[in-house]
């Protein structure tokens, strides 16, 4: 069975390492914060200007001045700090943030990512995504393997306007964990109960499949 959004978030949470500063994008990435492994301490950065982001506030305790980059009300952990947008992107561009997790509409086998625009249909803007993908050393894309129409989002080349080039090294989908290197997708793990054939079929780009593909442990 393929993973749901929570499953994808749980698998990505296993990539967290002690002492990391982490930026989580909107959507599935936001859920990663709910599944930090035991014994691991990380701090979440939100690019609108907080380090040490905490969980959503209790009902009635919302503060209009305290939000995340998705404009949701949040709380601040002990030791949190607020800063302006230029300082925030100094943290990001200056590679002081160890991991960025973000969603995508398309990823290509050479590590390109598209997630900000569908010409003629949707133009919301890139927000901080271009700065994040251009600078982060360690980017994980969290997304469904195919779109709602069943078309693969793992492509030879992106068809939508790009957000960044050659920047994605790891993708976690509802079907698999894949690394991107040498211009190809490499199958690393498959979701529980998902066959290698299913993943091959759902991947439009070139996919390297090793002899043994372990099942994810969620």
């Amino acid at each position: 069975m393929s993973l749901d959004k929570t499953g994808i978030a749980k698998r990505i949470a296993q990539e967290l390492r002690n002492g990391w500063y982490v930026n989580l994008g909107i959507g599935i990435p936001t859920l990663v914060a709910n599944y930090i492994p035991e014994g691991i301490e990380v701090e979440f950065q939100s690019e609108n200007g907080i380090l040490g982001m905490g969980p959503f506030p209790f009902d009635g305790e919302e503060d209009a001045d305290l939000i995340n980059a998705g404009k949701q009300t949040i709380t601040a952990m002990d030791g949190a700090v607020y800063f302006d947008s230029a300082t925030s992107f100094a943290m990001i561009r200056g590679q002081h943030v160890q991991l960025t997790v973000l969603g995508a509409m398309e990823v290509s086998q050479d590590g390109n990512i598209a997630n900000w625009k569908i010409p003629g249909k949707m133009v919301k803007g890139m927000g901080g995504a271009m700065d994040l993908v251009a600078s982060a050393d360690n980017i994980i894309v969290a997304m469904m393997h195919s779109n709602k129409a069943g078309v693969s989002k793992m492509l030879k080349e992106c068809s939508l306007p790009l957000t960044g080039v050659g920047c994605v090294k790891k993708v976690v989908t509802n079907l698999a964990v894949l690394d991107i290197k040498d211009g190809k997708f490499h199958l690393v793990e498959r979701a529980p109960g998902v066959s290698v054939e299913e993943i091959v079929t759902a991947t439009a780009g070139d996919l390297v499949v090793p002899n043994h593909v372990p099942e994810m442990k969620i």
Partner: protein
Amino acid sequence: MNKVVKDKVEGLAGIESNMTIMLGGFGLCGIPENSISRLVEMGVTGLTCISNNAGVDDFGLGLLLQGKQIKKMISSYVGENDEFERQMLSGELEVDLIPQGSLAERCRAGGAGIPAFFTPAGYGTEVAEGKEVREYNGKPHILETALTADFAIVKAWKGDTAGNLVYKATARNFNPMMAMAGKITIAEVEELVPAGELNPNEIHTPGIFVQRIFQGEKFEKRIEQRTTRQKH
């Protein structure tokens, strides 16, 4: 130096049609809402607005869009606003979308006397079209230029009569850089105190960047995405 003006009417005096205006805020958080309502009253049109977002349909910069007062928006993210999308797709509204970090740094540069800088953000995308590319440390970067404005309008939590500002939580966002980049910077604050009451160690924006300051009449502080959890 006393920077205090009576109210939003006096605060925004001199803003004319076709000017370029910077407005602080991220979403609806930290926006100068009293000043925006004054811009609606003034009826100025043909504005170029530099602001990370464009508000929602019935609040923030969305109010200026409704009155067709904005000619051009320079932003990083403009979702959640149907009227914006309609005006953009119909060609009534010019839109320049900029990566958020580049937008922040371009404002900072404008205020800091740095005319341009190289950044990796946007390389290889349509943002890079027509821009100079240079390699540093083996990585391509694009040239981005500074932004300034005829007026910058910022919102702070507390301010003093000398124009020193303190922001609250994530309502700080773009306000400090925009305060630096305005030829004339107007600060609307929730609480205006006499000079000497704010701790100089804890001031975020030094008063030198602020020409006019007033206490806002009313702050609605609308929340865009109210998200909570239940007490167990």
